[in-house]
């Protein structure tokens, strides 16, 4: 009896968690409200194209909503959505590779615009200016990374996903994720050092 009770208690959290996740997926408004901004940022800085990112983000949310029955709850919704977004980005690259890069050039992220959204916590004008320069620099450096390096970098340091989740979302072994992260960090640090 005691064993059964403890088993039920042990199962309670995952079941509740999964139930909450499925509840989120059932309501398209909640899904959009909760995940759209984060997904849009991820896709924008992965592809380097804000217009394309909007399309992919919409498609990603729509795909997730339509396939909500297939969500098993093994991972978080965030990881699941990110993996859908990664696949959409890859599909886009595969099918329209040339157009993709052409578009990426035509509709690149305006780093000055992004940097203007720097938090007001940087009280002095000098601190704000430095922060803006940092944002612009890092954004520019991310453009120089390979797609895989950039994607895992954003997952780890912007979305704060752990290695197991990144591995699942990218559909690649953890050691490969680590390698991409090492290379990305090395490139980012060396370029930041060279520019400063």
């Amino acid at each position, binding site marked *: 009896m005691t064993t059964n009770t403890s088993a039920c208690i042990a199962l309670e959290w995952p079941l509740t968690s999964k139930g909450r996740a499925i509840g989120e997926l059932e309501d398209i408004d909640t899904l959009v409200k909760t995940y759209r901004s984060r997904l849009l940022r991820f896709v924008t800085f992965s592809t380097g194209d804000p217009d394309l990112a909007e399309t992919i983000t919409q498609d990603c949310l729509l795909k997730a909503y339509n396939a909500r029955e297939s969500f098993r709850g093994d991972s978080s919704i965030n990881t699941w959505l990110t993996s859908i977004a990664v696949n959409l980005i890859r599909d886009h690259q595969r099918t329209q590779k040339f157009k993709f890069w052409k578009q990426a050039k035509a509709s690149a992220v305006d780093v000055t615009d992004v940097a203007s959204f720097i938090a007001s916590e940087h009280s002095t004008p000098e601190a704000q200016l430095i922060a803006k320069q940092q944002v612009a620099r890092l954004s520019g450096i991310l453009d120089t990374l390979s797609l895989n390096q950039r994607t895992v970098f954003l997952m780890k340091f912007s979305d704060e996903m752990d290695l197991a989740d990144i591995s699942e979302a990218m559909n690649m072994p953890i050691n490969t994720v*680590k390698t991409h992260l090492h290379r990305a960090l090395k490139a980012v640090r060396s370029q930041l050092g060279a520019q400063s």
Partner: protein
Amino acid sequence: MNMKDSAVIPHSHLSDDELDEILIGIATDDASAHLAHCTSCGQRLAAFQSQLDAFNHATMAWSEARANSISRDLLAHKLTPRVTLKAAWSSAAVAVLALAFAVGGRHYASETAPMETAQAPSAASSPDDVRQHEIDSDNAMLAAIDDEIVTPQPDRFGLYEPAKASTHVSQSIPEQARD
């Protein structure tokens, strides 16, 4: 320099690779212990973290602003069932084939029963009258189709022969109907 060196030599600082491992979250205990007591390494790490934080804050604020500016109706519009281009073309093709079959069948019927057509009664509201009207209408449509087809169209090699085309046209209608 590897982690072992930095742990053994008290004054040596963490290498770049070790700092990366700390950032990635796979640092060894020795590296973590060194970081806890080394101001210099802590500052290096904090400097990098602050750049990441600035980037994350700005990009998230930018993304939220951009997401809010996108019309909310867009997603709702996408959720409604839509006829895709492929489906539209399929439907159009089926409709054309159905029309071709119908026209071909009626044309065949009118050719095989000419007397029946000619001997239609004159009562305006009788079923035969209605049938005659339909036949006339079909004939008019066939004539219009004939006119359209007879219009010279160069073939794919640009070698157009009017005489050949016109003879081909008169025989082409039943073939199209069979397609």
